[in-house]
């Protein structure tokens, strides 16, 4: 994988500092950080936390492919960083970090949006919401089957 791309599925705290440091470079005038966090509600149900499951080997392969696509579309000079959490997170916990470093702001915004949207559709990660009621359920998602 390119030295300008970092991807990882991690079972420990995701670090904003490490993400920022990775995309920083002297030639970059823009650094953009997207942080996904666990919110306290979904579909009018109060949420107490979320468990994330992941098939890490394939998840990291697909995240790398998505980053390579972003460089091809928005600029080969982009520095791209994706980490996704696996395990249980309480409200406010960081589930995903996407960081983009770019000489200019426009490609940074475009690449960041591309990375999170493609991640949600293609990367083998699953969310199980836990509710204040004590119930929990796996969320619906996007099928990886062609023409399901």
């Amino acid at each position: 994988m390119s030295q300008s791309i970092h991807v990882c599925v991690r079972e420990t705290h995701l670090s904003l500092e490490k993400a920022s440091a990775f995309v920083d470079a002297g030639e970059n005038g823009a650094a953009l950080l997207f942080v996904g966090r666990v919110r306290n509600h979904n579909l009018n149900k109060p949420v107490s936390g979320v468990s994330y499951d992941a098939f890490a080997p394939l998840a990291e392969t697909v995240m790398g492919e998505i980053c390579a696509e972003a460089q091809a579309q928005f600029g080969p000079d982009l520095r791209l960083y994706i980490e996704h959490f696996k395990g249980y997170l309480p409200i406010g916990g960081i589930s995903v970090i996407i960081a983009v470093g770019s000489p200019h702001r426009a490609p940074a915004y475009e690449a960041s949006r591309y990375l999170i949207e493609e991640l949600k559709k293609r990367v083998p990660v699953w969310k199980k919401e836990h509710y204040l009621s004590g119930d929990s359920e796996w969320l619906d998602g996007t099928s990886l089957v062609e023409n399901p």
Partner: protein
Amino acid sequence: MTRHPCLRRVSNMQKIELEISFFGAFRKYERTGPLRLTLAAGAGMTAVKAAIAEALDPAASDLLKVSALADAQQVLSSAHVFESSAQLVLLPPVSGG
């Protein structure tokens, strides 16, 4: 005594073993480790999914239809043919982020 030719063909058919790990909503079915299926070499995706469906709770059938099989490198297409034993994963619709 000569065996019936059809019986000989079946007994000579090469068998493969597929070890299938579960993720997400399928985790609850992985009670004692991965599911192990023995099938004829050359089985297609439809046959493999039918064998998985037989091993699981009937309530899982709708989820199984929209779930993909993959190995560590890629999601397998519906045209994939299983020629040799393999370790696979069953991936329900994804919901990361």
